[in-house]
């Protein structure tokens, strides 16, 4: 006669924490163990440093030498953008690669874990891999390009709050993107990249949103990334930063960032629930497209 083994019950918070931790570790392994640490380090740096140098050369061919506040704008934007690429797009690619590449989605999904927690853990692992490139890009900006990233200018508490809120906003955006990826197949690989490219254009990553046409300026304020980047520039560069929202004070920018992020977290939770239910109803949650 079979006997039931007593399984210790976990509270939901502890379970979430455990899932986050394990999926973070898994995501980190997938992200980093394809090569040796040195090549991974070079790979991590090449993209943001290449990006910032493109902007620096664009700046110098127009300005013909000299330094200006736009350099600081470029450096901070380019240093922080990998968090978006890896965090937001990474969460979607986590689902897509589990579904299409590793073919493990059905096993992960049917295991007794909160799937949302698993995806967030994967996204946070990807976002963590953006820390080193961000720091080195900022150091490069400070010491090679002479950007005024002086410790005396940096408002540490302000930047820390902006950063934590920003990561939450990136994860919320990622949940919306992953919701769409659940419901589509063939285009799923390209879609996160498309969303990323669109956000790169409208969120003031490499130029102030005041340069955009009126309707796009309004649209840019809907996304938490715009407020995050603005707040981070103010936190890191102080009063010397070029501003996308000159009408807003520092506290106002941070408040907007927190509010917009909170709204996106609520919206993302709602949309993810609907998409998950819909994908299960249609039987396409683990549908492979062979692309």
């Amino acid at each position, binding site marked *: 006669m079979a006997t039931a083994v007593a399984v210790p019950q976990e509270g939901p918070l502890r379970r979430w924490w455990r899932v986050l931790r394990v999926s973070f570790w898994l995501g980190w392994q997938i992200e980093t163990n394809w090569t040796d640490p040195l090549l991974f380090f070079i790979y991590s740096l090449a*993209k*943001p440093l*290449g990006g910032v140098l*493109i902007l620096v050369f*664009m700046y110098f061919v127009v300005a013909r030498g000299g330094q200006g506040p736009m350099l600081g704008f470029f450096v901070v934007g380019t240093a922080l953008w990998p968090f978006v690429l890896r965090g937001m797009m990474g969460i979607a690619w986590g689902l897509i690669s589990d579904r299409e590449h590793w073919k493990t989605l059905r096993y992960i999904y049917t295991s007794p874990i909160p799937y949302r927690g698993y995806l967030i853990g994967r996204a946070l692992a990807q976002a963590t891999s953006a820390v080193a490139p961000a720091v080195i890009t900022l150091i490069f900006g400070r010491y090679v390009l002479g950007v005024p990233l002086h410790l005396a200018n940096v408002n540490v508490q302000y930047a820390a709050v902006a950063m934590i809120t920003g990561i939450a906003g990136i994860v919320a955006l990622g949940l919306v993107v992953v919701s769409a990826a659940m419901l589509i197949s063939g285009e799923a690989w390209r879609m996160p*990249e*498309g969303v990323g490219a669109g956000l*790169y254009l409208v969120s003031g990553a490499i130029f102030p949103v005041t340069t955009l046409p009126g309707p796009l300026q309004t649209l840019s304020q809907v996304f938490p990334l715009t407020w995050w980047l603005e707040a981070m520039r103010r936190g890191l560069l102080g009063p010397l930063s070029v501003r996308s929202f000159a009408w807003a004070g520092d506290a106002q920018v941070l408040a907007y960032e927190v509010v917009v992020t909170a709204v996106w977290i609520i919206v993302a939770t709602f949309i993810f629930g609907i998409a998950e239910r819909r994908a299960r109803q249609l039987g396409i949650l683990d549908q492979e497209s062979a692309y």
Partner: protein
Amino acid sequence: MTTASIPRVRGLRRVLRAALGRSYPRIIGQNRERSWLFYDTVLPLLGTIAFVYVYKALGAPDRFIGYVIMGGATTAFWMNVMWNMAAQFYWDKQGGNLELYMVVPCGITPILLGMSLGGFVATVLRAVAIVLIGSLMFHVRFDISNLGVFLLVFGVAVVALYGLGVTFASLFLLWGREAWHMAELFMEPVFLASGFYFPVRALGFWAAMGTSLIPLTLALDAMRQLLFGAAHPALLPVWWEVAGLVFLAVLFIVLARFMLARMEYLARREGRLSLRF
């Protein structure tokens, strides 16, 4: 029982038939899948527009916007070469096609030739769309009085570029998961080194000469000279750049042949041809 007669083609005819056969799914497939058409055109265009706004924020003269639009169109070619040529064998490994390519009687070279041909036809449509849409959006004017030379530069550059793509494809044949990341690694640094968004002369003469090993460096500089005239800070005179591109085309074709044979041998010996992960 009779055996069906199979037409026996050899030599150049076999190479051409195999190449055309491999290019067919590329041309038809890429244009049949509407979403790919959208993403392949819109994605480089969004990035291009972002860089246009950088120049607008810096108050740059209008010709810089033209530079960026040309760089955006070139991005489509570079992405095609890296993702659909260099990394293609990685996808084929995943899909199980690579083993089939290895056992067909035509050999791997015509397969790569067909991939290049198909990729080029599909990409040229997207590049033209990027230039047209970008020019109309930002009212950019190009001087097309030297259209013949422009087409010559473009043609030679494409041969050199796809030769480089085949060389990379042979390297990628050895890689598993690294292929994806290595293709990623060759994006922004190449955009920087080849001056996709600014005149490459800004890197300094000798640095730009060094990065001219990437065919797009010379091609972009020559095409910008032809489209923007004396306003463009040239790296070298146009005909020198054409000669450089011809040299690179020959170099990469020879190198591709050598590398392909060498890497195929290594991949077979080390058992990596069917190694998926």
